[in-house]
């Protein structure tokens, strides 16, 4: 049974990118959004999964070295991808056509980042990728533009600071370049979201130090502390980059 389960999870990572990190809790919402047959197959897998793991109750260890850094990024991208997938599935009241267009684009970017990291880890270190995480968005009111944009800003700024802080932990220069390719896209998102809240806040003094002109860089432990309230599983990142 566990083998079947595993192949189901693999499929979630590749064949059904948009649904991959969305586990059973939010599953009903996604079938409601007409995700289709793959998602239905997935739900069967998740039911089986209950025999082995209680969703949301476990600890997920990101691992060490570069694989740890990749898993760290994979965890954050899972969170972002799940958030925007929800925004698209249940748009907030009064969403404009432009906002729908660009939120949809961001949702795709984050899903691509998530699927990329899964694939990269599976290639570099088979079996070392962390599981699909269970998001906890209970604090977020997805019907409210203010609530959605506030949390979007939180996630994007956190993502930028996380990549900026993780650069020094990456040993393989190729991965460093790839992290650089992603962080600037996250910064573009962050600026877009901030301008939606208040035009001109794309790089305001609360996020970019007015004296040094530097964006934030955060250590792994601080990032995970900020992200933890939005994930059911307990994430352990104490060996990331070591």
């Amino acid at each position: 049974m566990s083998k079947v389960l595993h192949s189901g999870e693999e499929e979630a990572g590749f064949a059904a990118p948009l649904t991959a990190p969305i586990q059973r809790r939010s599953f009903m919402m996604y079938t409601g959004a007409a995700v289709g047959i793959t998602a239905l197959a997935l739900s069967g897998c998740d039911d089986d999964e209950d025999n082995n793991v209680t969703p949301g109750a476990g600890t997920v260890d990101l691992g060490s070295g570069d694989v740890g850094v990749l898993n760290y990024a994979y965890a954050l991208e899972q969170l972002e991808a799940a958030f925007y997938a929800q925004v698209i599935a249940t748009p907030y009241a009064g969403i404009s056509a432009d906002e729908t267009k660009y939120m949809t684009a961001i949702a795709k970017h984050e899903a691509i980042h998530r699927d990329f990291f899964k694939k990269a880890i599976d290639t570099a270190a088979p079996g070392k990728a962390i599981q699909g995480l269970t998001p906890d968005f209970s604090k977020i009111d997805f019907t409210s533009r203010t609530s959605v944009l506030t949390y979007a800003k939180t996630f994007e700024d956190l993502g930028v600071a996380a990549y900026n802080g993780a650069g020094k932990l990456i040993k393989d220069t190729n991965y460093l370049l790839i992290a650089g390719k992603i962080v600037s896209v996250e910064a573009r998102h962050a600026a877009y979201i901030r301008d939606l809240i208040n035009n001109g806040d794309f790089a305001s003094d609360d996020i970019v130090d007015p004296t040094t002109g530097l964006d934030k860089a955060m250590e792994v432990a601080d990032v995970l502390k900020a992200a933890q309230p939005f994930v059911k599983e307990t994430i352990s990142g104490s060996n990331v980059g070591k």
Partner: protein
Amino acid sequence: MNLFHILSELEKVEPETMAKLNSRRDIFSTLASMGKKAALAAAPIAIGSAFNKALAGTKDVFDVFNYALLLEYLEEDFYAQALAKAGLIPTGAPTSAIQLIKKHETAHVTLLKGALGAKANPRPKGFDFGPAFDTYANFLAYAQSLEDTGVRAYKGKAGEIKEAGNPNNYLTVALQIHSVEARHASHIRAMRRANGVMQANWITNAEANGAVAAVYGAGKPATTFPSEANVMQAGVDLTTLGYTKEQVSEAFDEGLDQETVVGIAGPFIMS
């Protein structure tokens, strides 16, 4: 093969080179990671490459920061000239945004000069941006070109800073500047959208939309620095995961090499 003998000979011929290496141990730790057999077979090549790396550690990071400083001088001057021209930038939100961006570029100049100390290159005599300030539309197109170039330029140097040994946490500082340039680029692109250019805050394919086309093209080597239309990451064509090439190209910003960047920015610099 006697490695100690080779090193002794090198010390005689290249005393300066040897002085720059922290210790012989640096060479051997590099060789050790290769495995004994491979190390013996490849020793001459490996030693040469180890020397290059050790030397890079004492030299290149300052070159990289001076290169960054030149780009920041250029950006700072570009916005200073734009703000000085009455009536070019509409008052209100557009002027406030450009003032904020200018403030960051000035801060970057100060920061990089401080990090370089006596090694900091002086400000060029001046910058000539040609028709950039003829119209607001021109100004925005040039601004987008410079910001998107800045993002690619910093990204292209991250590896070199890392391989230089990341002294004084310079890599993190470079990354913290890099993401600010991306925030600027995002907002400038939105300002152009508000001014009638249909485009997103991120880069779709290698579309310049009236900005400088080379900014979005391939660098050298193209395998490391492909155009912004690239869909291959870590050997995987990400369109095979169920996404369009537009979506994949948008999700990753590509880096750019110094030669290509200088080719883009060089014509603006008056020497």
